[in-house]
């Protein structure tokens, strides 16, 4: 009986004989947004378990590691400005059913050198391979224009980025990458995906969830604004009154 249990425990290792496996982890499973939050730095690290427990020999081609951190998807409306009667107004628009609110990809080598276009599209590897399911039908060139606009805007807000060569692999078995998460990220469930790639094929993949939420006072303010909006408004007005009146009263004393 004890022996059977021991075997069951070992099973994943034994079965990993054929292909290498990934044992990924992240430095923080929960990121709490408090008053001093200016963004977070995530350390994604782990080990590559090769069959037989040996590191690849010096002559062997080493595998590459790609890590992707994605924010919760949201349905967004992208608007495009154009000049109408001398002023710039929002003219054209495109709705997307699910676009990631945050997307960061780090790899040990530029992603274009690792896999072909088809694989990139399947695993959403790289900013030009995101599956941005549009909700409104549009001509392909129009959609491509809006896709570029969306990605470009998000990239300049540092909500989307690529970090080629940001994954360090030590001795072919340990990898680590640092990714920064800016303060502007939405709250929700993030995922950290790790891919092991060799010869243009994805050998192993693993996902770890990361929860980002507001904590303490920030959480309290956000939920009261949403759920107790009347009370929240009254408090906001009351605070303004108090500040104005208090400053005036204090000032007259001196």
């Amino acid at each position, binding site marked *: 009986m004890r022996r059977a249990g021991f075997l069951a425990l070992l099973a994943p290792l034994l079965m990993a004989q054929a292909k290498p496996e990934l044992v990924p982890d992240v430095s923080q499973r929960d990121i709490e947004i408090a008053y001093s939050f200016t963004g977070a730095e995530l350390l994604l690290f782990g080990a590559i378990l090769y069959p037989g427990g040996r590191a690849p020999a010096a002559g062997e081609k080493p595998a590459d590691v790609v890590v992707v951190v994605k924010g919760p998807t949201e349905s967004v409306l992208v608007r495009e400005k154009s000049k109408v009667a001398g002023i710039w107004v929002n003219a054209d628009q495109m709705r997307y059913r699910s676009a990631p609110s945050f997307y960061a990809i780090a790899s040990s080598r530029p992603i274009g050198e690792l896999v072909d276009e088809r694989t990139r599209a399947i695993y959403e590897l790289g900013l030009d391979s995101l599956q941005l399911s549009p909700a409104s039908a549009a001509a392909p060139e129009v959609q491509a224009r809006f896709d570029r606009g969306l990605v470009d805007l998000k990239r300049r807000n540092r909500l989307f980025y690529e970090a080629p060569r940001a994954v360090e692999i030590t001795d072919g078995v340990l990898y680590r990458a640092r990714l920064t998460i800016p303060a502007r990220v939405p709250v929700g469930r993030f995922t950290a995906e790790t891919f092991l790639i060799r010869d243009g094929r994805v050998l192993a993949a693993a996902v770890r969830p990361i929860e980002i939420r507001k904590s303490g006072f920030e959480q309290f303010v956000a939920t009261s604004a949403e759920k107790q*909006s009347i009370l929240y408004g009254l408090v906001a007005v009351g605070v303004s009154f108090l500040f104005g*009146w208090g400053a005036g009263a204090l000032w007259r004393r001196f």
Partner: protein
Amino acid sequence: MDLYLPIANLSVNALVIVALGLGVGLLSGMFGVGGGFLTTPLLIFYGIPPTVAAASAASQVTGASVSGVFAHLRRKGVDLQMGGVLVAGGVLGSMVGAWLFKILQAMGQIDVVIGVLYVLLLGSIGGLMFRESIGAIRVSRGAAVAKARKRRHHPLVAALPFRWRFYASGLYISPLAPLLLGFFTGILTMLLGVGGGFILVPAMLYILGMGTQTVVGTSLFQTLFTTAVATMVHATTTKAVDIVLAILLLLGSVIGAQLGARFAARARPEYLRLLLAVIVLTVAARMLLGLAWRPDEIYSVTVA
């Protein structure tokens, strides 16, 4: 000193926001305007989402006008009857404003409308104020002779039915005129996050024909209540009032307002008006450039 804003969902430098409030408060103390017309664009320029900026600026204006209202009440500079009518109009106006805000937001044109309104309002008011203050400065230097202005309300106001007596202002006019004025200011408060003092004061002087001794106090009274209502409406509809942002702004602006009031007591009013006119025209010109020049961001993303 970075601080995370829980509603705007971003972190800002708290000192910058307090300094911004201080500067705006200084102006509001000096000129008796709420300063919302500066806060909202400056916040947007700093990267705060426009809706959050307008909603939080409204509560800052409330705070900035409180001490002014008390000061004017003490020296009987508030026509409470007139103020009541204006506030009633303002409340109705902010309801309509909230409805307009929603429609424009859904159409994606809210930013453009805010920009155009700013350019038109600030441009015309600033232009008028500029001309008037230059004239006053010429008079004070003896370069021109002041024309005695007969204090009369606009003929359109006289044409409105059922007149009331407003004793504190010494007026016998239809309450519909201040009601409508309050109504339009209420819409502007909701859309732009401004108190509307810079429109109310000239309108009360030149359209209603009120005396200067009650104009500023009554305008502040209306501003106080309309911005408080606008804050409530924003809190319940757009849910964009960021209380942390508002407190930071208030912290600066209440101190600035007191400093500004002291400074204004020593300065000459026509030069102050000229300075305000120049500031208003600068903001209008900046907004106009923003509309006419190719924007940095062609695309914008809203979460639907």
